[in-house]
């Protein structure tokens, strides 16, 4: 079947089966920036924003969010126009293999939008649904702190 979705502020008609998850639907239609990790809702590699809230797209039926605004990593920043959070991840060396990075950036983006000056504890809590198996979390938390400082300095 075909269904129109609002993805990264663009109305797009996607091909899907009624029982497909949002993750399957996005990846099958070319949104490969949404990574498929565990498919169990535990690793956070597949995070997208649903109306500005991070969710595991592997745990969401696509047809249950057909009326909602979906944002993938490319809706936040691209390789040519990276977001400050993405820049901070690179500068802090928080992207060793990079597989978890899209999910980490999405979770960080949602956090900083809601809370521009998070404490370390708040960053840890916001990233509690994201697993990293090579970089480790120290540099990732540093990257979020760096991004928060960058964004705050720009807003002054």
């Amino acid at each position, binding site marked *: 079947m075909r269904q129109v979705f609002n993805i990264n502020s663009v109305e797009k008609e996607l091909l899907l089966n*009624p029982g497909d998850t949002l993750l399957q639907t996005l990846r099958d239609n070319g949104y490969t920036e949404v990574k498929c990790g565990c498919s169990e809702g535990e690793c*956070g590699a597949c*995070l997208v924003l649903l109306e500005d809230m*991070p969710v*595991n797209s592997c745990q969401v*039926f696509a047809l249950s969010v057909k009326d909602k605004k979906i944002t993938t990593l490319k809706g936040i920043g691209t390789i040519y126009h990276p977001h400050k959070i993405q820049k901070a991840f690179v500068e802090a060396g928080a992207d060793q293999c990079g597989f978890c990075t899209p999910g980490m950036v999405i979770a960080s983006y949602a956090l900083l939008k809601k809370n521009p000056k998070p404490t370390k504890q708040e960053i840890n809590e916001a990233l*509690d649904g994201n697993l990293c198996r090579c970089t480790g979390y120290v540099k990732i938390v540093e990257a979020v702190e760096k991004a928060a400082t960058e964004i705050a300095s720009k807003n002054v």
Partner: protein
Amino acid sequence: MMSHDLQWYYPEKISEALKLIKKEGIILHAGGTRILKTEARNLKGLVDISHLRLNHIRKEGKNIIIGAGCTLSDVINYCKKTNSFAGLCMALAEAASTPLRNRITVGGSLKDFPVWSSLYSPLIALNAKLELAGIKEIYSVEDYVKKNIIKTKHIIKQIIIKDDTDVICIVRRFNIVRFEYPIFNLAIVFKVKNKIIMDSRIVITGVKGRFHRFKLSEKALNGNALTEEVIAKSNEYFTPKFHTDYKYSPEYREHVAKVYFNDIVNELKEVMK
């Protein structure tokens, strides 16, 4: 793998949704997380509840009303904003992860008593009530399970919790790894006046018979100050019975539960100082 013939319904009235779920193979869809984990194979249809306007949280008189479509995050945010129900807030904040809590709904956490739900013990301890569509009566969460209403075809509309500022709710969740489903959830609600326990409700889930309330333990506490003797007496009656499991023996779990029980009572003692 889900059926490719799966039918989606988006009713705008609860009565329409109720009619639909009475048909074989059609169930409610709220957040969808449990369906994806457990029921995917034999489904014929999903009734999405997002247009039923069940995602409200509001104060009504002395009660807090939580719509069944609210996510765990909605409830946590409300509790933090209003500085209320700290125990409930803590129990929900420990469940799953941030992105999952943005999806898991209150109704989905109550329907069929899922093993991962951290909602039952605090709600029973807080003597919360459930308003259901398809059944006229308002049931306490305790009776909803005990009287097997949980097995009937109905829709949970909202949860009603008395907003009592004298009440202290403390919750402990036992699991070894953060992502593990809870082995048990222990919630104790105390009503304290002048350092005397006026009332208490002690509830544990993850035990035989889904949950257990310890009325003798409660009786030992009620009307007394928290002396060592009173605590010991109450703990003596606190004897949760667990299933045999490949992971931990029932005796070990009972031991941990008793440690947590003392831990909660000691936390209350600190609060009362």
